[in-house]
């Protein structure tokens, strides 16, 4: 299969294979992205995050259906956690999106985190580029179910949608730092349950305390399962996009994100070099043992490893 040709013709199999190759850090695949990078930049990336079981997958399914009415081509990257012990994973987000499986203009890919801790995987950014080249108008990145501080999605998305549910803690949860700060739009899912209004009020009160800016994250009550509030949610996502586009803020945000991703790429490669070299000289194990025995302190040990690449 000529992946380049097939990808540009819009074949899903080429798209899928290229994502796998990038997940495995394949050099040929990286070269292909280099070559086709000038075809990117036509997609809009929406990150969907929230705690496990809050309904991210179901909501992604509904949002996709809503955008399909406008004839948009959609890519979905659904991330689930990889076991730190075996490297295995259960990727189960597709279960909520089965209606979309046969839609020619929807591409869904499940990804394991493979060691990343920020809610997405190391190859997610590369997969976004593939789907961009493939021609998606919108890409949804569904993070793993997050707790309080897995905020890597904000380094990749143009708009971050935070999905929460009624009765998940008192008002102190709403004023904590971390995940609650990165949302551009809040969706209170399962809002047919008791407590949705209270949750909405708590989030709104927290937003009231923010420094006054010309954009304020809207808080929308939805029920993904009953398909309620989805059209309004799409409208709010589009409003955020318009806000960014009209104020040149989209370019600013993307440049900020590209800087973070670039640093990450450099960091990954540096770490590989360091680990490779220090393993070769058995330095890592030796130094670790010496730190335990007290014959060297951790900072001097670190200096010895840094010397390898200086």
């Amino acid at each position: 299969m000529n992946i380049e040709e097939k990808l540009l013709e819009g074949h899903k199999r080429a798209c899928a294979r290229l994502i796998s190759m990038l997940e495995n850090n394949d050099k040929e695949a990286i070269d292909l992205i280099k070559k086709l990078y000038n075809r990117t930049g036509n997609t809009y990336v929406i990150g969907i995050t929230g705690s496990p079981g809050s309904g991210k997958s179901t909501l992604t399914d509904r949002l996709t259906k809503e955008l399909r009415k406008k004839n948009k081509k959609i890519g979905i990257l659904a991330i689930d956690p990889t076991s730190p012990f075996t490297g295995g994973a259960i990727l189960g987000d597709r279960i909520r999106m089965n209606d979309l499986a046969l839609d020619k203009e929807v591409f869904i890919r499940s990804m394991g985190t493979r060691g990343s801790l920020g809610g997405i995987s190391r190859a997610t950014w590369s997969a976004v580029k593939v789907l961009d080249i493939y021609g998606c108008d919108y890409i949804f990145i569904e993070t793993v179910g997050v707790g309080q501080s897995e905020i890597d999605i904000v380094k990749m998305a143009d708009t971050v949608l935070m999905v929460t549910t009624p009765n998940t803690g008192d008002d102190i949860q709403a004023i904590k730092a971390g995940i609650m700060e990165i949302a551009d739009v809040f969706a209170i899912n399962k809002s047919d349950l008791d407590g949705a209004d209270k949750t909405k009020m708590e989030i709104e009160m927290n937003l009231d305390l923010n420094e006054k800016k010309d954009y304020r994250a809207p808080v929308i009550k939805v029920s993904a399962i009953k398909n309620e509030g989805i059209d309004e949610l799409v409208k709010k996502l589009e409003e955020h996009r318009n806000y960014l586009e009209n104020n040149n803020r989209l370019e600013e945000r993307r440049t900020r994100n590209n800087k973070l991703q670039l640093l990450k790429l450099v960091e990954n490669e540096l770490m590989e070099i360091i680990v490779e070299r220090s393993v070769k000289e058995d330095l890592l194990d030796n130094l670790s043992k010496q730190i335990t025995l007290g014959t060297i302190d951790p900072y001097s040990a670190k200096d010895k490893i840094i010397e390898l690449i200086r």
Partner: protein
Amino acid sequence: MDRPIRVLVAKPGLDGHDRGAKVIARALRDAGMEVIYTGLRQTPEQIVAAAVQEDADVVALSVLSGAHNHLFPKVVNLLKDEGVDDCLVIGGGVIPEDDIQGLIEAGVEAIYTPGSSTKDIVGYIETHLKRK
């Protein structure tokens, strides 16, 4: 192989029990594989579409309804139609001894019936992958 094996575990047809599929999914996870589980009541078309998009190395089908002779070969053939020639297809469920040979001839490469050991299934997958 230094990449995780990707397995699509799927339940075609109308039976409503996926305890077995979940046990298999869990065993494959514990063997270090990435298991994509698509849930109950899938059509062969949906399963093949998912296998393509997920770039699965293996499609593992589970059927308890008795419709395996129809559903398993259908998945094999649809994969062929999509040009997927490097994906291993295996099946499991309540499958009578007499049906096994026919399924294997139809392109399902291994069949596991109740009582099969998950270890055997993991071992089979690891040694019979069609792509490296």
